[in-house]
């Protein structure tokens, strides 16, 4: 398979990643254009399995754009063009054999603003498994709902009111509901686009704990504006600046010993 060889023959990639941890997703020279405007100028990133990759950088640097490339959410944006290669398990997700709908079931997404469906808590979680035919019968579906809510740490708070609307929960609960909804379809990768930016510190702490637990079963990519959050939840961090990926390394390395001047400037708060 040509994609596979291409990924493995990149000497840089081989040198910088520990060989023991396989790459779940790989981005090679990803360029994104909105009409004539170029938003990403050739991004190269490896996303390792069962690790949390944090994308940091000043506003408008292309973190969210890159995140949305990973499950082809940019397909829905008019005039958006993606070049380069993004592979999931060695397979080009923009290739002919991959269907965007199928891909989004494998690569789930949690958005900046909690966006539960205006339906019951139960239906919010059950919707994905239902449309993907993952549960046959009522009991199995109940089980999926319960398990998803438990993994999202929301079960104890909502188990007595599963029939009440999901929009009636607090902001933090809504966001955990959205995470539960995303994991209900058993994705392999979960993308989180500033999942805590609309939440208070306590709800944020909840979500951060949750991310750490979810890492065991899922590969997570998180966009965040909060440097402390990146330091707390991630193992790998990528710093974006003006559509470029400046550097990507172990989180500890980035925060203690950044190689690039711009990275240092950003994490020490000189700009951004």
């Amino acid at each position: 398979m040509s994609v596979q060889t291409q990924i493995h023959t990149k000497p840089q990639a081989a040198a910088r990643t520990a060989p023991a941890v396989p790459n779940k997703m790989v981005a090679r020279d990803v360029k994104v254009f909105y009409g004539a405007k170029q938003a990403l100028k050739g991004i190269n990133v490896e996303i390792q399995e069962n690790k949390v990759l944090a994308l940091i950088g000043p506003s408008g640097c292309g973190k969210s754009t890159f995140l949305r490339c990973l499950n082809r959410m940019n397909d829905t944006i008019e005039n958006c063009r993606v070049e380069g290669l993004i592979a999931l398990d060695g397979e080009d997700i923009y290739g002919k054999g991959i269907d965007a709908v199928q891909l989004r079931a494998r690569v789930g997404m949690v958005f900046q603003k909690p966006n539960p469906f205006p339906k019951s808590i139960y239906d919010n979680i059950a919707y994905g498994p239902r449309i993907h035919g993952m549960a046959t019968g009522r009991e199995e579906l109940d089980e999926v709902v319960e398990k998803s809510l438990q993994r999202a740490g929301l079960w104890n708070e909502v188990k007595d009111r599963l029939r009440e609307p999901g929009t009636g929960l607090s902001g933090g609960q809504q966001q955990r509901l959205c995470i539960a909804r995303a994991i209900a379809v058993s994705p392999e990768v979960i993308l989180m686009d500033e999942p805590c930016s609309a939440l208070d510190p306590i709800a944020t702490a909840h979500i951060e704990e949750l991310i750490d637990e979810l890492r065991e079963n899922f590969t997570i990519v998180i966009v965040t504006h909060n440097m402390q959050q990146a330091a707390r939840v991630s193992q790998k961090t990528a710093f974006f600046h003006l559509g470029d990926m400046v550097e990507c390394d172990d989180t500890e390395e980035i925060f203690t010993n950044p190689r690039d001047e711009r990275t240092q400037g950003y994490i020490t708060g000189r700009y951004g």
Partner: protein
Amino acid sequence: MTVTASKSHYQSEEFARRLRGRYAAERNFKIAGIAALALASMMLVVLLTSIVSKGYTAFQQAQVRLEVTLDKAMVEERNYTAILRQALYAQFPQITDRTGKRTLNELLSSGAPYELEALVKQNPAIVGTTQTVWVRADDEVDQFVKGNFPRTAPESERRLNDAKIAAIDAMTAKGTLVQAFNTTLFSAGDSREAEQAGIWGAIVGSMLTLMVTMLLSVPIGVAAAVYLEEFAPKNKWTDLIEVNINNLAAVPSIIFGLLGLAVFLGFFGLPRSAPLVGGLVMALMTLPVIIISARVALKSVPPSIREAALGIGASPLQTVTHHVLPLAMPGILTGTIIGMARALGETAPLLMIGMVAFIVDIPHGLTDSATVLPVQIYMWADSPERAFTERTSAAIMILLGFLILMNGLAVFLRKKFERRW
């Protein structure tokens, strides 16, 4: 503490004056708004009062009580006119001359013999007996009883001569001429005789027409709106289509009538005056309204809902049918019902396809000749008889009743299905 600094700008007299000016402007604006509202409601009240005061009498109709002897031979000859006249003459034994009898004949509706015939057909056992029956009085008698023809005018300028008035007074005194609820208005089709005319034919015609309109324009309109809003690429072709749809909504309705005449009658050879064609034309007319309101409703669904559905792997169609469309439904329903209400009140396009016709029969199918409520009003308003004036107003009241009902339904449905997030 010493006050050393001079008063700031915000405490100065100059500023206080400006502040007063701002409040005055706000007060004047409110007064203007209230005045506009008062004027609008006054016009509405005048309109409704005028219609109701002219029309409420149409819900009553003068009826004559007769003791008819259903002679077997006369029934076999179907000479019901003679049976009725005999019974009427019996009430006035003193009138024996031909002129006097003719005056009496004119008291009864020309449709009275048919009423009696229908009664006999319904219950043949009454032949050979004497029965008390109520038949409609002539519309002029009815109008006189309602006080619409002044009795003080000189006889030569009156519709009813002295002899007739005397007979009416005598019957009223005896209780054989009374006002009763006008069931004919709600059960009959059109007629040249006001007392036999009803709007049921027009109501059925309107219902059939609206049914065709709804069955065509709602699915096509909603599907078009969903495609344009959710699936179509935004390029110059879809821009062109959008501009055209917006323009079509503003096209005078008579143009749609001409189009219907040329296409449905001229080219496809569909029957004239049929609710089918009326419905087709109305569907063309309502389609842009429904498309525009459905697009607005779809646009108002927050994009985060679409992202949420797409993000867990729903296909674009599932996203639309499971999430976007249900959330847009209240808006779509409102737009649809308002479009339907507009179609219900529309006359002009129907003029072109022959639905302005004198049709006595109640339509039974989509291809029967029919007319609709507003057209019926238009035709009655054209009739010179005094009795049709009040029936015109009554028909307007019924049409308004239907419109209020539909708009009320729109409000109810919007409230019922509206969801907050």
